[in-house]
């Protein structure tokens, strides 16, 4: 258990509204990731972070931004939610001395109506 929590766990929002999802870890790991999971698409990387204030884009970053002002928190923001962003969002951390195997949070189910 890598001590990863996500909040909220479920959210329903309307198209055009901003949404922020929070990932919190308790073990001060350097690397953190945000994924989305959709049927038939597996896990797709949205953004990742390699340290405080150090972030970069993943393969599906359009419409998303992230921030990491503290080691333990990694925030994902949808500036103006669209129905195509309805998905399950997972946060993860990786541990370098374990071959970068990743440990995932429980997920946030987001519905954009």
């Amino acid at each position, binding site marked *: 258990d890598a001590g990863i929590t996500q909040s909220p766990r479920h959210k329903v929002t309307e198209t055009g509204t901003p949404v922020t999802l929070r990932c919190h870890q308790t073990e001060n790991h350097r690397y953190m990731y945000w994924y989305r999971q959709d049927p*038939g*698409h597996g896990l797709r990387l949205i953004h990742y972070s390699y340290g405080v204030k150090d972030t970069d884009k*993943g393969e599906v970053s359009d419409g998303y931004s992230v921030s990491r002002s503290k080691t333990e928190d990694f925030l994902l923001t949808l500036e103006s939610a669209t129905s195509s962003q309805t998905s399950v969002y997972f946060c993860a951390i990786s541990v370098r001395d374990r*071959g*970068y195997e*990743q440990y995932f949070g429980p997920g946030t189910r987001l519905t954009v109506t």
Partner: protein
Amino acid sequence: DQQVKQNSPSLSVQEGRISILNCDYTNSMFDYFLWYKKYPAEGPTFLISISSIKDKNEDGRFTVFLNKSAKHLSLHIVPSQPGDSAVYFCAASLLGNTNAGKSTFGDGTTLTVKP
């Protein structure tokens, strides 16, 4: 272009038999491969991994085989148990310092083990 492919969306096996899940990759630079297991309404959990310098890694009932020339890996579960029913994701990674530990995931294979 999808770099990691799991061509079988689903697999059904009888309890006690062997389950074989397959994964293909296109990027020959990948040097570390992982399998994750996911139950409904939970996050994926790490299962087993293998470095590109090896061709086999075993952990209890789970064995991963790597065939670098074919760019293919497989996960064997023997014997299969009903509790193994889950979605299995294959992932590939580059271990270099500049990669920030990123992995590329396949689309997953749903395994059903029938009692």
